[in-house]
């Protein structure tokens, strides 16, 4: 079960992140998880939102450089070792993680982790087989 991540190219300019986020806010799109990968002069903003298709369309309309990427989101207990357990499963099965980020859900005992894999289909299979809860598009929308 893959979900769509929205990646936005961000140049290093004052107020740019605000502009991007306020576009989403005005359109009533909610950010579920977010990370910024940055270098000296630019960054890539990656996020999981409740309405990814709508967000991508909105960004394109505003000439924001955007791309949709398949990622896998899993739910783990928000306890020490929660992430390590998932990583062990993946490591044992030789599934490569390109990058990942996480966030804690409101009013819940669980944490949500977003993974980018070079082979998302196999990663999904491995996680499901190990009994890890993989979050689907519908779950994200409803979060």
């Amino acid at each position, binding site marked *: 079960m893959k979900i769509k*991540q929205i*990646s936005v*190219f*961000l*140049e290093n*300019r004052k107020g740019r992140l605000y502009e991007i986020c306020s576009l989403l806010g005005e359109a009533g799109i909610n950010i579920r998880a977010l990370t910024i*990968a940055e*270098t000296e*002069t*630019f960054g*890539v903003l*990656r996020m999981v939102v409740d309405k990814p298709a709508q967000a991508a369309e909105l960004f394109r309309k505003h*000439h*924001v*450089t*955007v*791309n*949709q*990427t398949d990622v896998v989101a899993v739910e783990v207990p928000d306890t020490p070792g929660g992430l390590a357990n998932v990583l062990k499963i993946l490591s044992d099965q030789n599934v490569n993680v*390109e990058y990942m980020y996480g966030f804690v859900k409101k009013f819940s005992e669980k944490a949500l982790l977003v993974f980018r894999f070079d082979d998302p289909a196999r990663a999904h299979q491995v996680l499901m087989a190990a009994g890890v809860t993989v979050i689907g598009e519908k779950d994200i929308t409803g979060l």
Partner: protein
Amino acid sequence: MDIRFWNQEIETLAQKDLRQLQLTRLRELVGYAMKTPFYHKRLKKAGISSPEDIQDLEDLQKIPFTVKDDLRQAFPKGLLAVDMEQVVRIHSSSGTTGIPTVIYYTAKDLDRWTDLLARGIVATGAGPADVFQNMMSYGLFTGGLGLHYGAERVGLTVIPVGGGNTQRQLQLMRDFKTSVLHITPSYLLHIHQRMPEFRISPADLNLKKAWMGAEPHSENTRLKLQELYGIDIYNSYGLSEMNGPGVAFECAYKKDLHVWEDGYIIEIIDPATGKVLPEGQEGEVIFTNLIRHAMPLLRYRTRDLAFLHPEPCPCGRTGRRMSRITGRTDDMMIINGVNVFPSQIEEILMSIPEVGNNYQIHLTRKEGLDRLAVKVEIYSKLFTGDLSQLDALKAKINDKLRASITINSRIELHEPGALPAFEGKAKRVVDERDKL
């Protein structure tokens, strides 16, 4: 003032005799030019079908100008006037907009050129007792080899180190008691700034003079560098189309550069109309190379701006003095001594699919060295969302640029629409370097 000559007879030849010598050599040159496919056609069109059609020096003006693009169009051999068997050396540009310009020399051409360099060297007072550290690049660039052979001819001890590696340069200066340098102003400044790092001061060295070229610089820069090092600095001017360095050199008076007029005919024109300007007026410098037969060039447009001093120099040389270069008629940039056109950078950028439409070239100077930053917009449709893709793109742009212009640049990626668009009066080159 200690005035020395390498060839006093020629260097002080009366104006009248100098013009007669120019005419004889020009006729000879036209004979060689007629042998090249390029000039054969061009001279015929101008009504010149043999050297006899040149009656006096005024007739030179019947010949159309030759421009850099002509050299590219004639690549590789359209301007070659002799058999390849007679060619003993090739120099070449880095390949402006893809096609390089190539210069051919016979053994005699090199001999004549070397002699002009010997004159310049002696005019600055250098001689066999000097140890000369040549810090200009060797190789396809003419700056290194040109002065190298000139200095050997005069009998200086030559250290052929080439450019770069400041620590080693300083070590050589100290070990061999270097007395003369050939260097760009920016590198000379850079070395001074780094001296404390190696616990060396100019007082520890035996430096007496430097020949400075390849980059335009002001009189203030010369004065400042002279003071920093406690040496005499002489300007040198040249370009590979006119063989290389040593087209004009300063004498002991350091009041602008004597053109070796038996070797080159200099004209100053209005770049807009092409009309020859009266002596003393600033305009574009045009050279006819009288001493190279392998590859004749007639009335070559240098795109450099300068003027000629009408009054004679107290040193007694009759070759008129040209001013230092005051500007360019095109958009050529000089980055750490390397000539770069914005069009070269544009061509590379536009060959990369992930690069968008707009770019900007930023020039700054840090610790005496020029820094080139190239800002480009990324092409949205090819954005994958991966940071590694963007890093790879930066590396790819830098690699491709370096292969073309031989300079490392800092690549900045921007969002589409972030840089000024080309339409209108967008500035593609932002030069924030202090005037040297």
